[in-house]
Structure formats: structure tokens, C-alpha cells
């Protein structure tokens, strides 16, 4: 493919997805895929087709159905894919997209076996692609493209980027950010599984580099060390105000709280420990999730 054109185009992107993204839906004709593809199109996302093996040549939601991702890349120029394939086949779908040259792969599917994801993670290491998720609400660039299952109207256009492991908590944050008048650039739902493609740090890095984003909200939860890793990076390289929240202060040790990755294993992955590290790295951490918007507004008031 013409890689020069692709590179040039990506420079114009907000973060990850924008108006020009050519999006395909893997698992297009299934019930989830159909519903959410419809919602994405309604939002204004440039959905150029979908993939359902064996149904190639048909038309669905007024868009072409392809047999493979490679065919969708070749015939429709797809560069972003969103995956609604059932858990047993989702790892395969991600690898197919990576192999076909898709640049941004958003895996919504919840419940992919961990062993499958260790293989995916290894497989895509040397591929030129960014995997978001799995088990995530997707990515939305306000007013441009919704590649996910989030309710689009909550994300008012503005200047704050959001990185989050959780779906509804992202909506909560976006709603608060919009209500204090700041609005959202891009919200990245990275997912709540133990193995995910884009980490908190990766997403923060993207938003720090985006000229349109002026502040960042980081929403984490118990389990793993992604927030600490991001906090250390922010301490060294951060140039924009960051507000953080960690869910699960009251979660008991050793119990999985909904998300497969949300489990306190030791001392380091409790909400308390994460908040302590984030604060030490200069992040404004709120204890109550009701204060996310307020805290960001205060940071901007001081700045102004």
C-alpha cells in the first residue's frame, strides 16, 4: 500500500481516530456489530464496510461486506478496525487485522482467554499497529469519529483527553468535564483485562503529544501497575495538567471486581498505593469520582 499517504494522513489526526479514519467493523453482521456500527455511522464515523467471513459481496447497513480484513484494506482502504467478534475467535480477528496492515485495532470483545492474549501481544509486537483493548468501550474523538460503544452525545468537543480502564466511568468523567465547560478531545478506553494492547502510559503519551489536548484525565482501578508506570512517565515528561482517579479503594483483596484484571494481588496494586505514587509524581488525584470535573476546572482556573 501507499505508506507515504498513510503517514501524512496520520499527522493530521487528533489522537488515534479522526474524521478521515476509514473504519471497518469485524463481526459486522452479528447483532452487536450491527447495532454499534449503526450508532457509529449515525455519529458521523466514516465506516467504509465490515468483515464477516463467508458473507463477502453482500451489503449491510448500506456498506460492503468483505470476506477478510485484507480485502477490506485493499478495496476500501480501511485503516481502523473495530472488533465485535465472540471471545473464542477474537484473538484470531485481532491478528488478522494486524497482518492486513490495519493501523488502529479496537477490540471491544470481553472474555478473551488470557493465553490467547499473550499470543496476540507477542504477535503484534513487530507489527505497525496500535491495539486498543480488549474488553474496552473503544475510542472517540469528539465531533469526529466514534470507534466504540460509548454514547457519543456525552463527549462535547473541547480540550481534555481521557484515558480509562472503565466504560461507564469514562462516561461519568466525560460528562463532568463537559459540564464544567472544558470538553473532550479524545477519550481512550484502554480496557480492564490483564493483558491489553495500549497501556495507560501509551495512551497518556499520545495525548501529551496532541496539540489540541490541554489536560488529561487518567482513570484507573485496582490491579496491575499500569497507573504507576504512567505516573512515572508523567513525572519525567508531562507538560499538561493531569487529574487522576483510581476505583476500588473499598474492594477486598483477592476478589475479581467485574473486570478480569481488577484484582488486588499485593501491596502495590491497591487503590491506595496507586494514588500515593500518582500524587508523588505530581498528578492531582481525587478520592471521589464526583470530583473529576471540578478538579480539572480548578487546575485550569489556576493556569488562566
Amino acid at each position: 500500500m501507499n505508506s507515504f499517504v498513510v503517514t501524512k494522513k496520520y499527522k493530521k489526526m487528533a489522537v488515534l481516530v479522526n474524521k478521515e479514519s476509514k473504519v471497518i467493523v469485524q463481526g459486522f453482521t452479528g447483532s452487536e456489530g450491527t447495532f454499534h456500527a449503526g450508532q457509529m455511522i449515525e455519529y458521523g464515523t466514516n465506516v467504509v464496510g465490515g468483515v464477516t467471513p463467508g458473507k463477502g459481496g453482500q451489503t449491510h447497513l448500506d456498506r460492503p461486506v468483505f470476506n477478510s480484513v485484507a480485502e477490506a484494506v485493499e478495496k476500501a482502504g480501511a485503516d481502523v478496525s473495530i472488533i465485535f467478534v465472540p471471545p473464542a475467535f477474537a484473538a484470531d480477528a485481532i491478528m488478522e487485522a494486524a497482518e492486513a496492515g490495519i493501523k488502529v485495532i479496537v477490540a471491544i470483545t470481553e472474555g478473551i482467554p488470557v493465553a490467547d492474549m499473550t499470543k496476540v501481544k507477542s504477535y503484534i509486537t513487530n507489527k505497525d499497529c496500535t491495539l486498543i483493548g480488549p474488553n474496552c468501550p473503544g475510542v472517540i474523538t469528539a465531533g469526529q469519529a466514534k470507534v466504540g460503544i460509548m454514547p457519543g452525545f456525552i463527549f462535547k468537543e473541547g480540550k481534555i483527553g481521557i484515558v480509562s480502564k472503565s466504560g461507564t466511568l469514562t462516561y461519568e468523567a466525560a460528562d463532568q468535564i463537559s459540564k464544567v465547560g472544558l470538553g473532550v478531545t479524545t477519550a481512550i478506553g484502554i480496557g480492564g483485562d490483564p493483558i491489553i494492547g495500549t497501556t495507560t502510559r501509551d495512551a497518556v503519551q499520545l495525548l501529551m503529544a496532541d496539540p489540541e489536548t490541554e489536560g488529561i484525565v487518567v482513570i484507573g482501578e485496582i490491579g496491575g501497575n499500569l497507573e504507576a508506570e504512567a505516573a512515572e512517565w508523567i513525572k519525567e515528561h508531562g507538560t499538561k495538567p493531569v487529574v487522576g482517579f483510581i476505583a476500588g479503594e473499598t474492594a477486598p483483596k483477592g476478589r475479581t471486581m467485574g473486570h478480569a484484571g481488577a484484582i488486588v494481588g499485593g501491596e502495590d496494586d491497591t487503590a491506595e498505593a496507586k494514588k500515593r505514587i500518582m500524587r508523588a509524581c505530581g498528578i492531582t488525584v481525587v478520592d471521589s469520582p464526583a470530583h473529576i470535573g471540578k478538579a480539572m476546572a480548578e487546575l485550569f482556573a489556576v493556569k488562566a
Partner: protein
Amino acid sequence: MNLHEYQGKSILKSYGVGIQEGVVIDSADQATDAAKKLTEETGTEWYVVKAQIHAGGRGKGTVEETGSHGVVLAKGIDKIPEVVNGILGGHLETAQTNGKAKKVGKVLIAQDVYYPGESEISEIYMSVLLDRESGQNVIVYSTEGGMDIETVAEKTPELIYKEAIDPALGLQGFQARKIAFKLGLSGAAFKAMAKFVNSLYNAYVGCDASMFEINPVLKTSDDKVIAVDAKVTLDENALYRHKDYAAMRDISEEDPTEVEAKADELNYVKLDGNVGCMVNGAGLAMATMDIIKFSGGEPANFLDVGGTANAERVEKAFRLILKDKNVKALLVNIFGGIVRCDRVAQGIVDAYNNIGDINVPIIVRLQGTNAIEAKKLIEDSGLSVHSVTLLQEAADKVAEVLAV
């Protein structure tokens, strides 16, 4: 999903991992026959009787009814009935049972493997688990087996080693040999350990485990390497391809309300607090629990009702939460996106009317699509439900209700 020791060992054995052999029984009158059978198979004359519960620290734990420990050595077949009766059917409390004793429904009668012989016996620690940071499986091992690994990590962290496994290539022979070498083994024991590590890793991958912890791995006095204990957790998301292991689930180990919730496809975890909550989404559910605490309460549960919060599901969720007599208030927190708030509100009204005698205050926070219509619907219903839209208002309302 957690397995019992005897189940974990049966999986290990099927992959060729050496184990301490044993016979599991659920009734005391099977005890002597089981011991006899074990002697015929292994030649053992002493027996280790081990309570089968999903918790560690059994050896130091105490059976409430009899004062017996959870793991007891019976020095001879004549001692078996007394030892078994001291454990089986009783309630065992250990350092890991969170203050509650667990009913012992099964005991494992295992061979004695600490018999004297030519070489020195050594206890080793070994586990296989996912390293989330690298996305790779790692084998964690230590010469300091037989004790709590967290204690080892604290006192002598230099004695804990890690070997990362490339997911594309799997465990290589040289890695297994490196482990055996670092554990200070030689001769027959070295070879036995390399084979043990290899089989253990195959078992881990083969059954889609998320954790294997073998503590201790024993190097016997005749240079065999065997698993004396097995703590196994399987990846719930992969159980669909392991129907035989899925059938090993022991629901008596789980909270009955959680089992019921699972049957209704509700994601519920029972906690000890006084404010129940029903939320859509796992992250928001955890955040709601935190809000309850900041408002002066303690969360009574985690409950993610999911994307389809219709009347039927809301009613099931309400019934689950209200079963808990500690619950003094109930907070519903739904952020409606794709799901419309007015539909959820109608679900709440219907569920409330169907259940009838709800006598704890309910605070409903509905935000998102059609939130205003939803608030009106609840206010017009005449139910004694507090309706709010902002998260902060919900927090304040919880504090207010608890103060009464």
C-alpha cells in the same frame, strides 16, 4: 476458578508431573479402605490427612469442633479413623479464611513423602503465573519452600528467582535446566527437576491456568521431585474449552448469594458493609462503592448489572441485595448511554412494586440519556425513592440517609 488440592494434583498427574499420591474421601467410613489402597499403591505406612478447602495455611489452622489442625500426620493405619474424624465434617479456620471457618467436605489421605533415605530432603517453592507487565508467563521459584512466599519475599528476596517464558516459543529445555541448576540440584534430582518444570509448564498451558502454586515441591531422600501441594486457579474465560475442568467447580466454597447471582448473569460480590449498590459497569460499580465509604457508609456488595438494566434484572438485583440483613440503604447508580434512563427508571418502579415490602431507603441516581424524564418518572411514581442526577448529590444523599 479455584480448584482443590486433590483436583489440581489430578491435573498435574495427567501431564506427567510427579505428585504426592493420595485418595480423596468425603465420608469417614471410607477412610481405612482408602488408606489401605494407598499403601498397596505406594507402600506408605504413614499418612498425611489434609482438609480440602479453598484456603492456604491449613497446617496451622484449627478445626472449631475438635481443635485438630487442618493437616495431620497419622503414624499408622490404626490412627486414621481418629485423625480423619478430627477434620472431616468440621469447620476449619486458617490465617487465610478471613475470620470465617470453612466446612471441610472432603479430606485427602496422602502418602508420607518425608521418609528418610540416602540424600537430604529439600523443600522448594515454585509457581507459574502471568506477569501482567510483560504479558508473559513466568516461573517463580525459590530454595525456600514450605513457608509463606510473601515472608520469603520480605526477608530474603534474593532467594526468589524468576524465569520468563516467550509466549511464541514456550518453555525451552535450557530454561528448565537453569531452574534445576539454580535450585542447587545435581545428578538424578537435577534431571527429575528439569522434567518436573517442563511437565508443570505444559500442564499450566494445557489447562489454561492463571496460576499454579506448588509449595512445597519436594526433593525426596531418593531424589524424586514431586508436588506435595497444588494451588490452582483456572482462567474463567477459557473454561469453555475445558468442560472437564469446568465441572470441578465446588459451589459449596462460594457465597450462596454469589452463586445465585451468577445463575442470573449478574456480576455480584458480597461484602460486609451496610449500603447496598446496583450499578452498570465494573469501574463505576467500584467507584460507587468508594463513594459509599466517603459518605460514611460501608459497601455491602459489588454489583454490575450490565448493559440491560430492565425490570426483570433490576428486580433480581434488588432481591439479591435486600437478602443481606446488614443493608440499611440502597444506592442505584446508572449511567445511561446506550441504555435509556427512563427505561431503567420504569424497571426500578416495577421491581419496587413487585417486591412490595422494601423498608430500606433507596437512592436512585440516573444520569445520561433521558435522565430528566427518568427523574420525573420516579418522582411521579409515589414511591419512597430519593431521585438524584449528579454523583455528588448521590453521595450527599447517602450520608443524609445514614445519619437518620
